[in-house]
């Protein structure tokens, strides 16, 4: 099978859905410029014309409401934000209008709307170009929150999101964009609301979101050489959450680390800890441990940024502590960074 990148997978999903369904259109700041949102909108303008792929004024709040209006009138908009941070300008529309539209209309209205937003981590992106905000969106009833890790999931979940009759927030970590994987050429769907076992293991469960799956995998590979087998669960969608698969894994291993690509306080990691506490209490051999961003705004200087973001090393140390292992020598390991890109495969 041919290999494509995560970025190409997103592009292919949109292209195929726009071909299949005339009501699908793509809009947002810069979607049709020469950079094409990291290439994810490549060819859409040329293929489908400026009525179905268009740039907009810098009016995120209005453009979100605009998408809702088009959606309740029968269209299927895909609104793209090159940073999650910019999407925050549309929180009123998200929390007050889009999320509750179906409910408050007595189910008379449906809002098939996809909002793609990119996590813009490093280098030096700083506090306002690097946010994830997963938990903030997932906190609001009525929004689905999807964050694919692999190219296959990126394509299958984006097609599911476009075909979904409700609003879906689709969050993409740009460090995942360059990885390659074998991805079916034909359109296919990955169901929203189903977690995935990224790696099987018996000793400890890591529940990881988005980029943190890459870090978790690296940690698992390192410890595998020491005879420790880690299971990694990628929820893939955090709203709705497949808590059954998480519970099944933790009930098997008895240990749980949550590696979230977000802040910890009141976050998704706390939600997983609560789920594990409710569903795995008798089988837990240790308290749930959470790994995420430092509780600060994201700084820009390299050494501070490195301190802000957790990586495989932090995960390895957390696992060792949990399992009572001595510290593995990591001096010869090379870890991922903005320059040392992850290119897959999983």
């Amino acid at each position, binding site marked *: 099978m041919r290999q494509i990148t995560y970025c190409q997978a997103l592009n292919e999903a949109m292209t195929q859905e726009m071909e299949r369904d005339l009501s699908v259109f793509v809009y947002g700041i810069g979607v049709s410029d020469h950079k094409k949102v990291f290439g994810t909108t490549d060819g859409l303008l040329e293929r489908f014309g400026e009525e179905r792929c268009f740039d907009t004024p810098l009016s995120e709040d209005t453009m979100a409401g*605009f998408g809702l209006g088009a959606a309740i009138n029968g269209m299927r908009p895909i609104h793209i934000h090159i940073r999650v941070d910019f999407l925050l300008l549309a929180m009123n529309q998200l929390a007050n209008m889009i999320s509750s539209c179906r409910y408050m209309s*007595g189910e008379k209205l449906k809002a098939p709307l996809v909002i793609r937003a990119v996590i813009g981590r490093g280098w030096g992106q700083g506090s306002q170009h690097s946010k994830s905000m997963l938990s903030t969106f997932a906190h609001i009833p009525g929004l689905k929150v999807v964050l694919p890790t692999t190219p296959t999931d990126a394509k299958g979940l984006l097609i599911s999101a476009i075909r979904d009759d409700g609003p879906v927030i689709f969050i993409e970590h740009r460090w995942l964009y360059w990885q390659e994987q074998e991805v079916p050429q034909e359109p296919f769907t990955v169901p929203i609301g189903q977690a995935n076992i990224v790696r099987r293991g018996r000793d400890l469960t890591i529940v990881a979101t988005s980029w943190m799956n890459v870090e978790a995998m690296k940690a698992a590979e390192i410890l595998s050489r020491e005879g420790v087998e880690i299971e990694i669960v990628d929820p893939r969608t955090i709203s709705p959450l497949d808590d059954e698969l998480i519970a099944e894994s933790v009930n098997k291993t008895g240990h749980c680390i949550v590696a979230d690509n977000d802040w910890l306080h009141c976050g998704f990691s706390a939600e997983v800890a609560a789920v594990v506490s409710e569903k795995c209490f008798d089988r837990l051999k240790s308290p749930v441990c959470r790994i995420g961003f430092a509780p600060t705004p994201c700084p820009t200087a390299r050494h501070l940024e490195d301190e802000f973001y957790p990586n495989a090393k932090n995960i390895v140390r957390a696992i060792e502590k949990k399992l009572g292992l001595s510290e593995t020598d990591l001096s010869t390991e090379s870890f991922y960074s903005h320059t040392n890109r992850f290119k897959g495969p999983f």
Partner: protein
Amino acid sequence: MDRCLKMTTGQVSVKSNAVFELNLELYRKLYLIRRAEEKIQEHYSEDEMKTPMHMSMGAEAISAGVCHALGPESQVLGTYRSHALFLAKTGDTDDFFAEMYGKKTASLKGKGGSMHLCSPDYGFMITSAIVASAIPVAVGCAFANKQADNDKIVAVFFGDGAVDEGVFWESFNLACLMRLPILFVCEDNSLAVHTPKSMRHGYDSITDVLSNFDCLVWQKKTTDVEVIYIETHQLIEQIQAEQMPCFLHLHYYRYLEHVGINQDFDAGYRSRDEFEEWYKVDPIRLQRTKLKGLGYSEQDIRRLEKGIEEQINNSLTMAQNAPFVESSELYKGVLV
């Protein structure tokens, strides 16, 4: 006026008949709205309608005139103060009162209430209790209509407070940029809750500012529903012919408090004298007088009013007697 009536009748000989029918229909709408709200006033203290009432009283001519000009195929979006708009667009008093009482028989089943009325089957799309938040949604509706090439007009209603919000400017700019078939209806009562325009606006005239955009702008201080109807009718033709949005600025006086069913002239922020001036040209009374001038007898008018009273009373009684929706309904309709 002649221009639009000729369009609807085609012959000058039936013009007087058409004027008569038009004014009768407009009065029917006005009377229905006014009496429905008076019925709310009558029963609100019973504490069975547990939803904050932002009353339309005083503004009826705007909704009635504009909606009549828009016709049934159009779409409207509004605010938390949308009783008049809902009744002018749908005429559905059964649904209206059922939702006020939060009953199962309402199309929203008690999930919307007075501030979130919605009836897409009638083209009454969305209302919002967050000032200006329905405006961009209306622009999106207009975009979809333009793409579908279906000749539908969208009208979005909002107060003068909404033009203080950034999203109004963003949305207006977008509609002008995309040349969308949309009517922005500013129902200006000079108050944002209790705050006058003089404390909110760094400019004199909103229409002066907006006339610099690629759009049509029209303003009027009138409570004459027929005038509003005729002007809107012509503006809709212009929106379609010139393919650009229109800002329609209409003034009215809010008879009652911001939220609630009572007058509040003792609160100190406005005077009863002001109200008395406006009440001399109350839209319902004005239209009733006009009907008499057109030859409708007092007896005929009373017969018409009686029919509307009966409709409202029936709807009210049905709503009062209807069951509440099952508690399990709480969880339905969140996600698809």
